[in-house]
């Protein structure tokens, strides 16, 4: 019996080695492969590189504590290079060639939309760690970032409030792709429901990688000069934020006059910018590095130590941000779900994910919704400080349930709050 097994194993390993799939089948059998699908070059690298590092750090942390079900995790890192079709190609490679149990990846919605069909076809599992526009619910995806009602809507409500400056006119500014367009559609409907007139809303888009924001800033100034308090909602993504904020500072548009609230700008994006002229501009997230609690202190320390150990560029100034925390939560929840299901089988892990909880660095025990694949998360609004960190000026009392189908888009009330075919 033993001998037959041995022969079988030898035959299989020779076959595999000959096919060039795996050179060390003995080790491969003892690890669980985890795919990491983040752009490490191109316009999105500014945001996504840190997520790769966070995922690697969390994997190292889990491995140091004995791995998952006694097996070590093995990261497979690929670089889709901010190239949306390449995301789909790399996802297919991860699922079919590397045979990963789960993938952590994507930032922009356009990249997620590009990989969705691949995960559906091959029944893979994707954890998506970034706030997004909602309007989708895939069985094969878990969304650990915010839906619009967990970020965009509270941010706009805050700016309408007395403390937020009672804004009456709105500039919706974004990069030209699906996330900003959809978010602004939802926000427009929301603003109208609050009695804001069509003439008091201005919508503007720029291409990916745009670097000349003179005209836009001049337009915002003109729009703001028409008598009513104006606020800007920015859904600019990627490295365009650096020239945008530079121009904003140089043009002398202060936060006390025209506050800018951003949904894709966190501590990491502000690292390359002189933040002194930007004090008071806002961002809405479910986590800020400046939140004080023991979990967050440990999380920040872990990442700083990791950066030093890995000799990341400018390791002494690394910061943590919301999508990094979401990646961290996602990996831990996946581990818990695998241990509950006692297998990495995708369907069983999906079932086991429902209702998972995790004590997150944002200071709350976060729960994965039983049905809709989104986390219940608390919302924070922070103002930029001179040192590039955020000062929390408003927060929800506790975690908020996600509404992936925004009630501000017609027809969404009929949609089910759980993925099809589950």
């Amino acid at each position, binding site marked *: 019996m033993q001998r037959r097994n041995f022969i079988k194993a030898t035959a299989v390993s020779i076959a595999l080695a000959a096919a060039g799939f795996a050179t060390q089948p003995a080790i491969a059998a003892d690890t669980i492969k985890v795919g990491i699908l983040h752009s490490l070059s191109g316009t999105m690298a500014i945001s996504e590189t840190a997520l790769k590092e966070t995922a690697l750090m969390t994997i190292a942390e889990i491995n140091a504590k004995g791995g998952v079900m006694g097996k070590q995790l093995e990261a497979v890192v690929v670089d889709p290079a901010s190239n949306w079709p390449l995301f789909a190609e790399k996802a297919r490679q991860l699922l079919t060639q590397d045979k990963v149990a789960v993938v952590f990846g994507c930032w922009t919605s356009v990249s997620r939309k590009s990989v969705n069909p691949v995960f559906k076809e091959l029944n893979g599992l994707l954890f998506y760690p970034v706030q997004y526009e909602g309007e989708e619910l895939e069985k094969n995806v878990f969304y650990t970032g915010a839906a619009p009602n967990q970020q965009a809507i509270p941010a706009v409500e805050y700016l309408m409030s007395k*403390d937020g*400056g009672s804004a009456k006119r709105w500039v919706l500014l974004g990069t030209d792709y699906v996330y900003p367009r959809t978010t602004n559609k939802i926000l427009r409907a929301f603003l109208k429901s609050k009695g804001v007139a069509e003439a008091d809303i201005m919508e503007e888009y720029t291409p990916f990688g745009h670097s*000349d924001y003179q005209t836009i800033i*001049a337009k915002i100034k003109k729009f703001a000069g028409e*008598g009513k308090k104006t606020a800007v909602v920015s859904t600019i993504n990627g490295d365009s934020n*650096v020239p945008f904020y530079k121009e904003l500072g*140089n043009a002398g548009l202060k936060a*006390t006059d025209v506050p800018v609230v951003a949904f894709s700008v966190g501590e990491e994006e502000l690292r390359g910018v*002189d933040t002194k002229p930007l004090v*008071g501009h806002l961002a809405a997230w479910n986590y800020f590095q400046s939140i004080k609690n023991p979990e967050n202190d440990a999380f920040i320390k872990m990442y700083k130590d990791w950066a030093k150990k890995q000799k990341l560029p400018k390791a002494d100034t690394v910061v943590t941000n919301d999508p990094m925390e979401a990646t961290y939560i996602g990996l831990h929840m996946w581990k818990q779900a695998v241990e509950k299901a006692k297998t990495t089988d995708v369907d069983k892990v999906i079932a086991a994910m429902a209702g998972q909880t995790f004590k997150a660095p944002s200071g709350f025990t976060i729960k994965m919704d039983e049905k809709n694949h989104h986390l219940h998360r608390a919302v924070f609004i922070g103002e930029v400080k001179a040192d590039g960190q955020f000062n929390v000026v408003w927060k929800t009392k506790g975690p908020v349930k996600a509404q992936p189908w925004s009630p501000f888009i017609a027809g969404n009330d009929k949609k089910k709050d759980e993925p099809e075919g589950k």
Partner: protein
Amino acid sequence: MRHFFFALLMLCLSLAAHAALDPAAVRQLAAEESDDKIAAIQKLALTAEPDALALLQQLADGTLKDENGEDITINNRVRRELDGALAVLKLIDPDTKVRYKAVKEIATNVDAGMAPMLARARDRETEPKIRALLIEVHALATLKDADPQIRLAAAKALATSADPNTKALLKAQSEPANETEVDVRRAAFQSYLAVKDRLTLAETLGRIFSGLSLGSILLLAALGLAITYGVMGVINMAHGELLMIGAYATYGMQGLFRAHFPAHEDWYLLAAVPVAFFAAAAVGILLERTVIRWLYGRALETLLATWGLSLMLIQAARVIFGAQNVEVANPEWMSGGLEILPSIVLPLNRIVIVGFALFVLVLVWVLMNRTRLGMFVRAVTQNRGMAGCVGVPTGRIDTVAFALGAGIAGLGGVALSQIANVGPDMGQGYIVDSFMVVVLGGVGQLAGAVWAALGLGIVTKFIESWAGAVIAKIVVLVFIIMFIQKRPQGLFALKGRFVES
């Protein structure tokens, strides 16, 4: 509000009060609610004590700590009140710059209650610039006064304003719903027209400037190509990567200055200019000697080979500097802006770049038209065989000319590093624009490149301002395609006898 400011003014003027700061008010600065914080700020500002001013300034700078040693944080609403209170306290500052800034600050958030205080400050002010501003701000505060005569005077005084907010206020005042007196309505409307004209002018000026700025960036990006492609006929797809090398050279100099001459860090940019030029030129020589010179006259092969070279250069940058963008900071003297009118601020970095483009242009023009080297380059371009016959070393001239084009691209990279992101694939974004400029201007013409760059810059900015950045890009591209259909030789065609023609 009114009483608050009036009392504040009284205290500002009577510098006798010397009471210690109310500890309850100081403690209240750390209150949870914004309303409480604002009340405390007002209470403290009322004392007009230098101590209070210092304390509030600390709060504004974010350095004030509460009893537990935690930073006291403020939000935008508190910050606005705080800035207002600080500005009022600073109205009596001996430094004219501080006073001017204070009046500017008050202008953004003026209140009817401030009128008597502003009137006094105005009468006391000796500096004409600040006085003019105070007259305006005072008029803003009295535009809704109960006395029609005062309203009329205010409406008239505001005709000199160039502030968009004033325009909106005057418009409202000229409507019968808000103003009962016909005279005041008429004066307000006339002032409104004056302000509107001034603002329209400012807007147009602003647009022309941003067009000029974009044009000079296009010019800097394209000028090197105008030499290599325009004059030498090499379709150099690696041109964008030469820009990138210039930008990384700037980044390198910044690092060098930070490490070795931190006191002179702001001047790294000047040192970066020659370094970027020679770094890009050296790469240019390498490319020309190893690859391009074997392909002269074979356009398609050159295109493919240089495209391959561009990929190699991008990958090399990724290996050396990492795939992520690197941070190149504007020096202190290039940060901020020059305020022409309240509605237009010209960013200093862009002004410097326009000047730099001019400098590079003059440099290239002198090199090409006033030096022996330039003459040789032109001679080789016009008739290679004849130039060779009269003793011009054509092979070496090719190398030097290509190095010159590459070096100028490096200079473009220095400028780009100040306004755009510096990363391995930054050049890709400029290669299309550069070819557009050269082709539109007319191949072989420096003057053509200048007009094309400025024209494209200004046209793009004007389209952007009414149709948005995405449409502007499309419209400009379509326009160039149509233009090239009609006039394949570009704006300026070379006249004369050539070997090829």
